[in-house]
């Protein structure tokens, strides 16, 4: 991850060194080309050559001056010697003729570079190459005259070289690139960066750094407008200069505070101070206008540079502690840019030679590339993070799945245990209250000698029947009432046959699955068995019909079981009949069912059981008391 950053930084460094090597002027290189060391100058007006007795003042090149008065015209003069009239083309290379000028060689005009005037403000930063026609030149001393004019502000004349055009051309090209083309490239890149960061911030509002970087880039672009337009109407000049101060102030304040904050320094008072200092520049410019450039403007710019230096310092301290090289690379790039800015400022104030290449034009793209590189690095890292996170997420999901599966298995196991515990409890209860107490009562009666053999056999037979019912109910897994009822039929059919009764069994109204409470299965079986047993014992019917079905009433589904015989009816039945019916009713009530008995003497009996299906939790039937139908027999014996 850090390797690309190191490589990027190294690459940037090498590229920067190469650029400097190529672009910085290397004096004394040309054979024949000669640098003009000094010029003479005198006041004058355009179109009128200076008088012969004019007073000339000598001055070394490059030169710089500041003017606070009104518009002034001056003539510049210098000479150069030629051993013979040149055969190839010759030219003059003005490294920087900031205010433009009309150029004459041996009294003949060779160029008219647009002049700084009342209506038009010019500030040439590009070099000018002026071709000299061969027949204008002669052996010996040749004289060059340049008329230029200046108004309020800082002015200067850079290097001047005379020589064969072919020799000056490369210099001219490289200077033009650095001081003109590169400026525009830097400005465009800055604008793109402002737009790019703005778009980033628009999509990710939470990352205020993107918004700040966009504003910083935009301020820088605003500031650069002043240098971008070398020639513009005089009334526009105030605006571009204002933009310069406003842009510089905004840039300095935003960049300094951003660097401070990023460096971990949070000083509300200091930040406020920065803002106040920054605002001072554009404010004073707005008050004092153009003269601000000459008065406090320079000092203010120095303060701004100092603030940026402080910001960079805190960022650098933070970067040294940071484990990644990305921040260090950015600090380095900002440092280079700041150094370039200081260099250009020193040129501006005249400490360094006027007309030196503007290093900021080179440093700005370097800084932008560093920021772009950091952004790419961050993007790549985010992608890697996303991939890693995805992989982690996948494995975590897998783990979670396993966990869920284990939990599910455990849950199912515990449910199974619980179900079997409930089942056991149900069987115990049933044994205790039913068969157990039944056998005990029977034993008492047998010991007392109160039962006949036939009665004992009946009690035992019914006990066994009841046990078989219990076993059928147990086998009826998943409330499989249908098979359990089928088993009852399978067992009862031969008995009815022996009693001379036909059993008609109609389960057509029953669906595949009948969902009833598991606790209700056995009571239902007992009720049906008792109904059939009663029919065998008492009805004297020739046929018994059992009809099973499901119907809907009162918004719920009911299981209905009808046992109908064509016998003599209940009223004529034996004593035990009443007791048997009571048993059936009790059982029905305990499972939340309804038992209805209709009987017509001499025509038959119908017993209808209606049980709500287990669509919702039914009544609590867990603790129901089940009793055996042989209670009827015992009761009978007791009474008898």
């Amino acid at each position, binding site marked *: 991850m850090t390797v690309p950053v190191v490589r990027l930084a190294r690459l940037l460094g090498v590229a920067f060194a190469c650029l400097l090597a190529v672009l910085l002027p290397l004096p004394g290189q040309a054979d024949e080309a000669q640098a003009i060391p000094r010029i003479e100058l005198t006041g004058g007006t355009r179109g009128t050559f200076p008088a012969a007795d004019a007073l000339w003042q000598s001055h070394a090149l490059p030169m710089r001056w500041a003017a606070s008065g009104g518009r002034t015209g001056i003539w510049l003069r210098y000479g150069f010697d030629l051993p013979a009239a040149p055969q190839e083309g010759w030219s003059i290379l003005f490294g920087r003729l900031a205010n433009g000028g009309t150029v004459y060689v041996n009294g003949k005009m060779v160029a008219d570079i647009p002049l700084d005037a009342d209506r038009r403000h010019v500030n040439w930063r590009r070099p000018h190459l002026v071709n000299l026609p061969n027949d204008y030149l002669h052996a010996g001393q040749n004289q060059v005259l340049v008329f230029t004019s200046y108004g309020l502000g800082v002015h200067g004349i850079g290097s001047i070289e005379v020589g064969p055009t072919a020799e000056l051309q490369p210099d001219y090209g490289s200077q033009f690139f650095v001081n003109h083309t590169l400026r525009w490239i830097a400005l465009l890149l800055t604008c793109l960066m402002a737009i790019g960061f703005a778009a980033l911030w628009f999509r990710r509002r939470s990352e205020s750094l993107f918004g700040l970087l966009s504003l910083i880039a935009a301020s820088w672009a605003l500031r650069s407008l002043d240098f971008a337009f070398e020639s513009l109407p005089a009334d526009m000049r105030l605006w571009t200069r204002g933009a310069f101060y406003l842009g510089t102030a905004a840039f300095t304040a935003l960049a300094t505070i951003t660097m401070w904050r990023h460096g971990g320094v949070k000083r509300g008072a200091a930040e406020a101070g920065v803002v106040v200092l920054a605002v001072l520049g554009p404010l004073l410019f707005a008050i004092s206008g153009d003269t601000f450039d000459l008065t406090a403007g320079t000092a203010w710019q120095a303060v701004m540079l100092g603030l940026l230096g402080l910001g960079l310092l805190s960022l650098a301290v933070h970067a040294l502690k940071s484990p990644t090289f990305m921040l260090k690379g950015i600090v380095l790039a900002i440092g280079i840019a700041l150094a370039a800015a200081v260099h250009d400022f020193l040129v501006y104030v005249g400490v360094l030679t006027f007309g030196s290449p503007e290093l900021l034009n080179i440093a700005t793209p370097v800084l932008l590339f560093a920021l772009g590189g950091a952004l790419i690095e961050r993007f790549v890292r985010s992608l890697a993070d996303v991939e890693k996170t995805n992989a982690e997420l996948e494995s975590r999901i897998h783990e979670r799945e396993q966990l869920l599966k284990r939990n599910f298995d455990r849950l199912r196991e515990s449910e199974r245990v619980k179900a079997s515990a409930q089942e056991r409890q149900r069987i115990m209860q049933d044994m205790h209250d039913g068969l157990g107490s039944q056998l005990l009562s029977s034993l008492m009666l047998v010991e007392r000698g109160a039962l006949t053999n036939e009665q004992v056999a009946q009690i035992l037979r019914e006990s066994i029947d009841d046990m078989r019912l219990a*076993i059928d109910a147990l086998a009826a897994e998943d409330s499989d009432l249908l098979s*359990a009822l089928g088993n009852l039929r399978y067992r009862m059919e031969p008995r009815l046959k022996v009693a001379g009764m036909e059993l008609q069994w109609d389960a057509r109204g029953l669906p595949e699955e009948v969902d009833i409470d598991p606790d209700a299965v056995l009571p239902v079986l007992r009720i049906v068995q008792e109904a059939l047993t009663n029919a065998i014992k008492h009805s004297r019917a020739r046929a018994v019909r059992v009809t099973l079905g499901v119907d809907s009433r009162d918004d719920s589904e009911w299981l209905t079981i009808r046992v109908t015989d064509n016998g003599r009816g209940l009223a004529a039945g034996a004593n035990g009949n009443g007791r048997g019916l009571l048993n059936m009713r009790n059982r029905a009530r305990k499972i939340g069912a309804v038992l209805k008995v209709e009987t017509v003497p001499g025509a038959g009996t119908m017993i209808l059981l209606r049980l709500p299906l287990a669509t919702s939790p039914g009544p609590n039937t867990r603790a129901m008391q089940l009793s055996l139908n042989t209670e009827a027999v015992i009761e009978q014996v007791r009474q008898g």
Partner: protein
Amino acid sequence: MSDQPISIIIVEDEPEFRRRFVQIIENEPSMTLVGVAANKREAQAIIDRESFDVMLIDLGLPDGSGIDLIRQVSQKKPDVDIMVVTVFGDEQHVVSSIEAGATGYILKDSAPADVISCIRLLRAGGSPVSPVVARSVLRAIRNRMGTTAPTRAPGSEQNPLSARETEILQLLAKGMSFNEIGEILGISPHTVTAHIKKIYRKLAVHSRGEAVYEATQMGLLKS
């Protein structure tokens, strides 16, 4: 049925029931009793010595489970019908007997006529079944196909039952009688019981194949 009486052996440890079954068979002219055993050892001797058509056997013998004897007889004497005598006709006893090779079962307290008619049904190629047992057989087959299919030998995981056989089991499980099923399917009640016997045989063969496969897997048998 041939004129030859049906030869029967009885394996039952409880004297009262043994006596009762002996009496039922002896009272039936078309059947002849060739051996009576009260435990596994005696039964083994009779099985080795005698030839017979039907074996009535109780599962709980004092010296072991009757299941082993059922498996042995069903493999050595495939023509013999094995009828399990059970108290409840419950799923656990009956299904494991069927898997071992039994083709019928009868309740211990069945009326003599029922015992005789059940034996006749068996010899005539049919098998009786109660709804709960039919449901259990269905469940046993479904379980085997569902839960152990991926680990079993190729080809053996298919449902051994035909569509018709499955349908009959489903109708039986719903509580329908042989007559009703015959009416629904347009076959005689006798054919229904014949189907049931075939189902029993398939279940036994199936579970035998499974046992062999599992034994091979465990290295007990060389395949």
